[in-house]
Structure formats: structure tokens, C-alpha cells
């Protein structure tokens, strides 16, 4: 019996030492794992990454609404600006639902204050000899040209041109066919003078490009427009037309021979009443340069800013 009592004491000592060792080990492990907890604390929603995404989504949605409205995609009832303001407020809902679905309540509001939009006119018509020449007081906010046929001309005499003038400065964009290429080859170029300095002519050649859509605002040319082979390409010649050299006043005149075929679309800052519809074309009221208020509120991020929405407009 005496031997059994001695063994019991040794077991007790062993258990005590083991318990102390386990407690010490637990302290060490807990201290280590604390670092991992800190590193894993936080994410895009806490940092504000979601606010950036929400702002970009709102800007894209409002721009899409304005773009659709101005191109006749919807038929608004009543005044354009009021209809636009009413529909803008609905656009925050999708983003708010997206935020809530990710496990964090996010309140996103997109709204218009003071109805900050400007009335304008979209002038459209066929590219031919009856192209309009706008008054010097009219400023173009956007210009798009869709050329479906360019006549072959060995001497490059037949061209379609757009001239923008401000005082003694001028800028001219021309479109003609390539003298050496095939019938569908298109040349887009610019010449001009700004601040009494003649700028070096530039041009871009697009092989087998028709129909071609020319966007001076972002200096791009869409070749084979409307077909499955449609490709958007950057044209350095147009770069200075849109943003590189700006004019305070646009005196836009267009000229083309009868052999050209295509369409143009100009967004100008005057209301419909002061811009006459060109022969064979139309002048419809639009709104542009909209400013909306964007608000993003989550438990960690408060962000409120104004967003200027001007899709396809010249800066």
C-alpha cells in the first residue's frame, strides 16, 4: 500500500508540471495569433474601395441614361430636365442593393440638386453639299461623323471637311480616300493654326475601313462600323482636335461633294429654337453637361461628391 501512495504523488507532480506547461504554451500561441487577427481586419469596404466602385457605377449609369435620352431611346413625358432628374434618383437603388448583399449596409444616393443640366440641340443630317454652317455663337459639345462611302479621287480634291474657327485660329479635319489604296481606304487628317502657330498636319490611314465612324471628342475612329468586324482605333491626328487645342467659340462649317454619303451628328449648346434644322436633317432638343450629387454612407465610409456626366462630349 505504501508503494501505491508514492506512485500517486509522482503522478500528481507530473500533472502539475504538464498543466503549467500547457498554460505557458497557450499564452505564447495567443500572442502569435493576434498578429493574424490584425492583418485580417478590414477590407475594400472599410478602405473605401467599394465607394470608388459605386461612384464609377453611378457615373456610368447616369451617363447611359443621358446618352439614351439624347438619342431618342426613350420618350420622356414633360420637360426633359425634370424627367431626367426623376429617373436619376432611381439609379442609386441598384448600388445600394449590391452593398447590402455583401453583408454591409450601404446607403447610396444619386440625386440632382438645382436641376443642373444645360439645354442643347442635337443636329443630325446627311453628309452632302447642304451641310450647315453654324453661327459663331453656337458651341459644339460633341461631333460624330459616320461616313459610308468616300469617292475615289486620284488628286485628293474631293474631300469632306469640318472647319472650326475662332478668330484667326482655325482647325480643320478632313476625310478622303487613300490615293494609293483600295476603294474602302479612308484617310482622316487635321491641319490648323492655333495662337498664330501653324500646326504640323497629321493624318491617319485606315485600310478597308468603310463604313467608318469618326469621334473627334476622344480621337477615335471606328472602322467597319456596325459590322461584326467593328474595331475602335485611336487616331493621333484627331487628338488635338478634341482636347489638345480648345477654341472658345466654334464656327463650324462642313463641306463635302455630292459623291460622299454618310451622316453627321452635332450636339450644340443652343436651344432648339435658335438652331434651324438642316435640309434633310433634324434638330431635336437634348440636355447635356449634367451634374448629379453622389452620396455613399457605410459604417466606416462617408463620401459625398458631385459628378459631372457628359458622355461623348468634347472636354
Amino acid at each position, binding site marked *: 500500500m505504501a508503494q501505491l501512495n508514492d506512485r500517486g504523488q509522482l503522478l500528481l507532480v507530473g500533472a502539475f508540471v504538464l498543466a503549467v506547461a500547457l498554460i505557458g504554451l497557450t499564452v505564447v500561441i495567443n500572442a502569435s495569433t493576434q498578429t493574424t487577427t490584425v492583418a485580417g481586419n478590414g477590407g475594400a469596404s472599410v478602405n473605401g474601395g467599394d465607394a470608388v466602385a459605386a461612384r464609377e457605377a453611378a457615373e456610368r449609369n447616369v451617363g447611359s441614361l443621358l446618352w439614351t435620352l439624347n438619342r431618342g431611346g426613350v420618350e420622356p413625358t414633360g420637360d426633359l430636365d425634370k424627367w431626367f432628374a426623376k429617373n436619376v434618383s432611381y439609379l442609386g437603388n441598384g448600388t445600394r442593393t449590391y452593398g447590402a448583399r455583401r453583408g454591409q449596409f450601404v446607403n447610396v444616393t444619386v440625386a440632382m440638386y438645382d436641376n443642373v443640366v444645360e439645354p442643347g440641340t442635337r443636329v443630325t443630317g446627311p453628309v452632302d453639299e447642304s451641310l450647315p454652317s453654324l453661327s459663331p455663337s453656337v458651341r459644339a459639345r460633341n461631333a460624330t461623323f459616320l461616313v459610308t462611302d468616300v469617292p475615289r479621287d486620284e488628286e485628293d480634291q474631293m474631300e469632306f471637311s469640318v472647319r472650326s474657327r475662332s478668330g484667326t485660329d482655325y482647325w480643320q479635319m478632313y476625310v478622303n480616300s487613300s490615293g494609293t489604296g483600295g476603294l474602302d481606304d479612308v484617310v482622316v487628317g487635321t491641319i490648323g493654326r492655333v495662337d498664330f502657330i501653324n500646326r504640323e498636319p497629321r493624318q491617319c490611314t485606315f485600310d478597308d475601313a468603310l463604313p467608318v465612324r469618326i469621334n473627334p471628342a476622344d480621337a477615335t475612329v471606328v472602322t467597319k462600323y456596325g459590322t461584326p468586324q467593328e474595331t475602335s482605333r485611336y487616331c493621333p491626328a484627331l487628338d488635338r482636335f478634341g482636347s489638345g487645342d480648345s477654341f472658345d467659340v466654334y464656327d463650324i462649317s462642313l463641306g463635302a461633294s455630292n459623291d460622299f454619303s454618310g451622316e453627321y451628328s452635332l450636339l450644340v449648346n443652343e436651344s432648339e429654337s435658335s438652331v434651324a434644322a438642316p435640309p434633310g436633317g433634324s434638330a431635336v432638343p437634348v440636355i447635356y453637361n449634367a451634374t448629379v450629387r453622389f452620396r455613399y454612407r457605410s459604417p*466606416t465610409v462617408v463620401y459625398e461628391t458631385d459628378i459631372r456626366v457628359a458622355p461623348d462630349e468634347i472636354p
Partner: protein
Amino acid sequence: MIRTDRGVSTGVSYALVIAISLVLTTGLVFGASSLVEQNQRSVTNQQTQVVGQQLAATLVHADRLAATEPEPRNLAITRRFPTRVAGSQYRITLTPAPGTVPTINRTVITLRPVASDAVARTNVSTSLQVGPAGGTTVLGGDVRVIYDPATDRLEVRNV
């Protein structure tokens, strides 16, 4: 007859057990304390670095949000950092640093635990200036990054 309980005394056994337990426990505590201390220093360094990098990321996000044209009317990002790292309070100091590119503002974020000589530094580059030219110091814990439209700067404050 062989006696198996020769020299065995209850008192001696008890004293021996106590002595052995004391020696073992003391050895374990001393051995483990240096290990814990070393680990605590490592944890302090890692935590301060993590907090510094998370604050840098928040500053970059705020800078990106404030870069819109026109400037934001209201911008505040709140981060909940631990009030203590490895059991010690700490201070966060943001100091402007000279940069080579005029349009980019460099800021050094320095974290100093009160009970330790460990220092963690993180550099961050933003388009906006962070805090006043003399620098800003805040305590560790809940921190808010605010855009101040009046000074066109990012400010870091305690919540």
C-alpha cells in the same frame, strides 16, 4: 523479511515533492518568459507594421476618392485599429517627407509603442498633402481620415 519502506518518511517525501515542483515550475517560467518576451517583441513589430500599412492603404483610398473633379463635399473613412499592440498603447505619427516629384506628396507613417522601443515606418505617396507641414500625431485605436476642402489636404484624427 525485506522492508521496502526503509528511509521513507512522509515529511521528507512531502518536502521533496514541493522542492522538485518548485524547481520545475521556476525553470519553466524562466524558460518560457524569455520565449514569450521574444515573441512579444516580434508580435509588436508585426502588428505595428500591419497597422501602418493598413493606414497607408486607407490614405491612398481617401486620396483616390478626393481626386474627383469637382472636389468632394464630404469624405471620411473610419478605421478601427487595435488600441494596444502586444499589450502596449502606441502613437501614430505622420510626417511629410521630401519627394522628387512635385505633384506627389510622400508621407512617413511612424508607429511607436509606449512600452517598447520598437518603431515601424511605412511610406505612402498621395496626390494630396497629408496633415500639416509639421506633422500629425494620433493615438492608436479608432482613426478617421478626413478630406478638408478648405486646405485641400487629408487629415488624420482620433475618433
